[in-house]
Structures are given as structure tokens and as C-alpha cells.
């Protein structure tokens, strides 16, 4: 009974995904790109591979002509920490970061030609971390200075994900002004949300770097990252600690969170359930014999193999056959009744006009 109860409190996920979105463009929004890249770094460090991260950056700060240190994006002043590096894999870059693409990624309603790296291939045992940063307002988040996503749309997208069984549990973190308004409308189960500020409050940026000339990070994400630096894949830190990150004294805004849709108690939710990719390992002391099955499998395979001869490369493509192909035979023929009827009519018309006396000339 104790085991069963423990099972209930443990998350039932088998894989982790992260969708990290930076929605602002232009040089002065450097900090949003730095935010997102920092979270990306942490999430990678804790074990989620690039194939399971969908990184959307609306602008390219590293190669921006105004960047005095090209190919770098710093998250700490005095250029201590370069979060760009040479192994960043950006999946949606520049103008591809649109509301439509974001919602398509979430709901999976993606054109068939989309490459795998741009897809969120989650299933019903996936825990997904969704981090969004940019400029927002009461009920909306601005994308690239030209469009917005509303909290209702986001809530509906999550509901679509729930109905399609695209997540087991979802952690939504948003670092924008009035960020709490974005999670107000969620109504799907198993969603936990964190925001950097309440409705009516602005999220402030942390520190400008006089060498680069812009603010490098936002306060909330800065302190979240400080917190995440102490997490390692085996740590047992839970969500309640994350909720305490960045009190008003440090952040100036009041961070908020929402857990009413979440089934488990936040105390039992590990940080690594969302930020890391921790595999569950069950240690067993039984031995399983594979020899019997392997032998049967091998014999079946060898039977089939004997029949085919190894093909040379040139023979694999029957070029001679292809170039000398005759045009396809016509498969359709007009029905016999039609032909009969048509010619009968034509003959009738002919004899009606020219008289029946010509019949004996024909036959």
C-alpha cells in the first residue's frame, strides 16, 4: 500500500520536452534572448537533449551588427557567461517565430514537410516545460512587434494538447510584464504556471552591461537561473522552492504561480521533473534469458536472406527499364452500349436525309 501511494505521488512521465520562446526582436531586447538562452543552457545541462528542445528566438543577437562581441550572448555583466557558444541549436529563428508557428508547435498541427527538429513530438507521458519571455500586457504577449497571442488562445492551445494527449504534465513559466494574466485562463488539467509579475506590475530588467550597452537579463529569470545553478540531475529540490525564488525585495515585481490545475502537491514535484531529463531506472535482481528468443529470430532472418543475392549499385535502379518504358496502355474504353447507340443514331440520320433507297448501295 505504501508503494502504491508512493507511485501516486511520483510523476508518471517518461520523457521531457522543453519549448523555449523569445518573442522580441531588435537589439534593445537583448535581454529576452539572453533569458531564453540561459534557460536553454540550464535545461541542457540537466539532461534534456537538443532533439527534445524547441528553441524559438526571434532575433539574432550574437550576429547583430551592434554586438561589440560577435558570436556571443552574455547573461552576466562583465561578460562572465556566454550562453550562446557553438552548440546552440535554434529551431525557429527570426521571422519564423510567429504566433501561428508557436501554436502549431504546441498543438502538433504542423505541415508534413516540417523537419523533426521543429516539431514537438511529445506524447501522453511527456513532461513539458514552456518558457516564454518578451513584452506582454494584461492578457496578451507580443510577438515580434507585429502580432499578439492572448491568454485565451494559449489556454485553448493547452486544452488541445490535453485532448490530444500531448503532455503528462506541463510547467509554464513566463517572464514578461503583467505575466500572471497569461495563466489566468488555463483550464486544462496538470498545468502548473509561474509568472514574473502580477497584473498591473512590470517585470524589470536586471543589469545593464556598459560594454555591450543593453540590459543583459531580466530580474526574475536571473534569480531563477541562480536557483537552477544549484540543481543537478539527482537533486530532490521541489517546486515550492521555485515559488520562493525572487521575492519582491529582489525582483521589485511580485512573482505569481498557479497550481490549482495540478493534481500533485507541488511539494512532491521535483524541479528535475521539468527542467531535467531524469530517467526512471528500476533495478531488478531477476535474470531474463534472451538466448531462446534471439536464436529463433536469427534463424528466421537467415532463411529470408538466402533467397536474395546482393545487388550491385548500378543494378538497383533499373534504368534500362525506365527509359524504354512504353506509354501506358489506355485502360478506359467507351462502353459498348454507347458506341452502338451513337452509330445507330448516325446511321438513322444518314438514311433519313438521303432516303432509304441508298441502303442497297451500302449493303
Amino acid at each position, binding site marked *: 500500500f505504501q508503494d502504491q501511494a508512493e507511485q501516486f505521488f511520483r510523476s508518471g512521465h517518461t520523457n521531457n520536452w522543453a519549448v523555449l520562446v523569445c518573442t522580441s526582436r531588435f537589439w534593445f531586447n537583448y535581454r529576452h534572448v539572453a533569458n531564453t538562452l540561459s534557460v536553454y543552457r540550464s535545461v541542457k545541462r540537466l539532461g534534456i537533449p537538443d532533439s527534445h528542445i524547441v528553441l524559438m528566438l526571434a532575433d539574432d543577437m550574437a550576429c547583430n551588427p551592434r554586438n561589440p562581441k560577435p558570436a556571443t550572448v552574455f547573461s552576466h555583466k562583465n561578460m562572465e557567461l556566454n550562453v550562446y557558444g557553438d552548440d546552440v541549436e535554434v529551431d525557429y529563428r527570426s521571422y519564423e517565430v510567429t504566433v501561428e508557428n508557436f501554436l502549431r508547435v504546441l498543438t502538433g498541427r504542423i505541415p508534413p514537410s516540417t523537419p523533426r527538429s521543429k516539431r514537438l513530438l511529445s506524447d501522453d507521458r511527456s513532461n513539458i516545460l514552456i518558457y516564454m519571455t518578451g513584452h506582454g500586457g494584461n492578457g496578451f504577449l507580443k510577438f515580434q512587434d507585429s502580432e499578439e497571442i492572448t491568454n485565451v488562445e494559449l489556454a485553448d492551445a493547452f486544452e488541445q494538447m490535453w485532448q490530444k494527449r500531448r503532455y503528462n504534465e506541463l510547467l509554464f513559466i513566463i517572464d514578461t510584464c503583467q505575466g500572471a494574466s497569461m495563466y489566468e485562463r488555463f483550464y486544462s488539467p496538470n498545468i502548473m504556471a509561474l509568472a514574473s509579475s502580477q497584473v498591473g506590475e512590470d517585470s524589470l530588467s536586471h543589469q545593464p552591461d556598459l560594454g555591450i550597452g543593453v540590459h543583459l537579463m531580466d530580474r526574475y529569470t536571473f534569480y531563477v537561473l541562480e536557483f537552477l545553478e544549484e540543481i543537478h540531475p539527482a537533486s530532490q529540490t521541489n517546486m515550492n522552492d521555485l515559488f520562493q525564488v525572487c521575492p519582491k525585495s529582489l525582483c521589485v515585481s511580485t512573482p505569481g504561480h498557479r497550481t490549482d490545475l495540478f493534481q500533485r502537491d507541488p511539494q512532491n514535484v521535483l524541479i528535475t521533473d521539468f527542467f531535467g531529463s531524469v530517467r526512471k531506472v528500476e533495478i531488478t535482481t531477476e535474470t531474463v534469458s534472451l538466448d531462446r528468443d534471439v536464436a529463433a529470430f536469427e534463424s528466421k532472418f537467415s532463411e529470408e536472406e538466402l533467397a536474395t543475392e546482393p545487388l550491385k549499385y548500378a543494378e538497383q535502379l533499373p534504368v534500362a527499364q525506365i527509359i524504354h518504358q512504353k506509354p*501506358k496502355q*489506355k*485502360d*478506359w*474504353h*467507351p*462502353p459498348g*452500349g*454507347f*458506341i452502338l*447507340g*451513337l452509330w445507330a*443514331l448516325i446511321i438513322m*440520320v444518314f438514311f*433519313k*436525309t438521303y432516303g432509304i433507297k441508298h441502303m442497297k448501295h451500302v449493303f
Partner: protein
Amino acid sequence: MAAPLVLVVLAAVTVRAALYRSSLAVFIAERVEVASPLNAWKRVVEGLALLDLGVSPYSGAIFHETPLIIYLFHFLIEYAELVFMITDVLTAVALYLAIQDFNKVVFKKQKLLIELDKYAPDVAELIQTPMEMHYIPLKVALFYLLNPYTVMSCVAKSTCAINNSVIAFFILATMKGSAFLSAVFLALATYQSLYPLTLFAPALLYLLQRQFIPVKLKSKSFWLYTMQYASLYLCSLVVIICLSFFLLNSWDFIPSVYGFILSVPDLTPNIGLFWYFFAEMFEHFSLFFVCVFQINVFFYTIPLAIKLKEHPVFFMFVQLAIISIFKSYPTVGDVALYMAFLPVWSHLYRFLRNIFILSCVLIFCSFLFPVLWHLWIYAGSANSNFYYAITLTFNIGQILLISDYFYAFLRREYYLTHGLHLTRQDGTEAMLVLK
């Protein structure tokens, strides 16, 4: 007269064969003035290919030909060029024979009216003589075969040539006086494209004239003959449509062909007036305006029948012109058909008022069509308004041409009965004015 006709036919066939072998064939085949969604050759090929794949060619909005065309080209698709050349030749020969017959009728009627003293004394110069009428059939065949519009239509393998040939056979049958054949060919022409329905009236009038039945609404023989002809026509139309059902065992072709012609869903630019209007129109008005535009084609039949009941062949000419101007997807092939008739009215030349300007307009517009198309589609420095302006001008030119001929015809008739030198009641010179 056979030898010159054979020469003309040979010349025409050579021109077409030469063009088929040249690189212009592909260029001409793509031109929207020559190939409309109704009669483009690549749509025929596409439809037959779909049929080979086991799909009905009428699924989707590609193929708008009638089942008889499917049947015809199913066996003849490899000889397509030959088929179209032969069709053109047949049309020309049919028109030749028809006009020969018509000339005889005209001449007989003229002689009758002279003997009955119906003509005024000083109209000797207006009366047609056999000498000048001798070469008219050859000129008609020439005008049809060597008209650049016809040549382009043939090289593009547009099935407009087949429509034209059916109409030409209908005209031949009407001229020969055979009501049965005329009804059959008219049914076939209506079945092909809907608009030759309006040629029912001139054909009826001509046949009535040949049977010497006066066109009076109270006359019983008039109604009897009309009923006979109408029933022949309708029966053959019904038979042909039912026969088409058995080709593919479905009625799909009716919305695809007739629904398409009437509701004009495809707004590819052509030389007609429909596309621009309906590209600009709001949805909830489009039904109303489609009806208005379609009625416009059929509308002129009754007034023209009343005015031209003594001259049904001219009526047929005007009606053909009206069809080719106002139909929903006109091409230059349709224009070529009624232009073939112009030599028949060459005696009206002295009464035509604007013939120079109109011929210039028509020629210039024909040259400007591809230029403005290139500017609009390829160079991007013009827009659809430019092309539409040329379309409008071309159609205005055609309409003015027809109305010019109409006026000239009526004027000649008036002069024939009232004399060339018109005087008012007080003896001063009068002038005939069209009000």
C-alpha cells in the same frame, strides 16, 4: 469552282502544318485569347489522362468538354493535329456550299421582286449581279481558312474548331432546306456550347421562308411547322444528352459543362467581358449579374427576329456575332466564324460608315492583347485594367462592326424599296438617319 477551293484548302493546310512544326505552336497554345477553360487542348488531354487513371474527368474543375468529345478524342488523340486540320477544312467546305446555295436563293428572290416591281426604279446599282456574286463562296472559304484567328485556333488545337464546324454544318443543312438535319446539327451545336440555342430562330425563319409559309402569328401552318421543328430539335437534344449519360454512366457532365458555362466560376482573363466584372464583384451580387450577363446573349433574338424576319441569313450572321461577343468564354475562334461571313455582305460596303476605324481598332487590339498580357503578367508594370481596356475596346469594335453592318443592311433594304434619291414631301433632298 472546285479547283480554286482546293488550292485555298491546300494553302491553309500548309500554313497550319508549318506552324505545327514550328516553335510558335507551344506559344500560341498557351495564349488565353485562343484557349479558354472550355476548349483548351491541354484540358482535353488532362481529362483523357484522368479517365485512363480511372477517375471521372469531370471531378474537379479541369475538364469542361462534352462526352462526345471524350469519345472522339479517345480514339483520335494521336492524330489530333490532323483532326483539327480536317475540321477546319470541313468547316470551310460546308460554308462554301452553304453560301453557294444562299446566293442562288438571293438571286432567285431578287429576280422575283424585280418582276413583281417591288423595287424602286433607280436602284439598278444596288442590285446584286451573278458576276459579283460568283466569287463570294470562295471568298468565304478563304476568309475562314486563312483568317489568322482560325489559324491560331487550329494550331492551339482548341476544340472551338469543332464547335465551329458543327455550326457550319448546321448552316449548310439549313440552307439546303432539310429541317431534320438542321435540327440535329443545331442540337449538336447546342449540346457542345449552350449558346447556339439562339440560332433556332433564324434557322426557323429561313426554313419557313423556303417552305413559303408566311410568318404570321395567327397562321396555323406557321405554328405547325414551328412545332415540328422545335420538337425535332428538342428530341434530338434529349437523345444526345441521354446518350452522353451512357458514356460514363453519370450525369456529372451537366454541371461540369452547362453549369460551368452558365455560372462562370473560372475567371481566367480572356477576350470577353465576364472575367473582369466577376473578379471585382461582391459575392452576394454575383448571381444577379451572372443572370444579367447571360440574358444579354439571349436577349437580342426576339427583337432581331421581328426586325429581320425577311432576312434570316443576315439574322443568323448577327446572332453568331452576338454569341461570340457576349458568350461567357469567347475566343478568337468564335470571332473567326462570323467574320467568315463578311464577304457575303460585301455589297453593303458603300453604306458602311466606320469600316476603316473599326478594322483598325480590331487589328490594333489583336496586336495589343499579347503585348499588354506580357506587361501585366511577366513584366509586372501593368495590371489587369490594361488588359481589360483592350478587351473592352476589342468588343466595342466588334459590336460597332456588327451594328454598322446591320445599319448598312437596313439602309440598303430601304433604298431598294424607296429609291436611292430620297426626297421629302416638299421635294428637297432627304437623308436617311438611324434613330
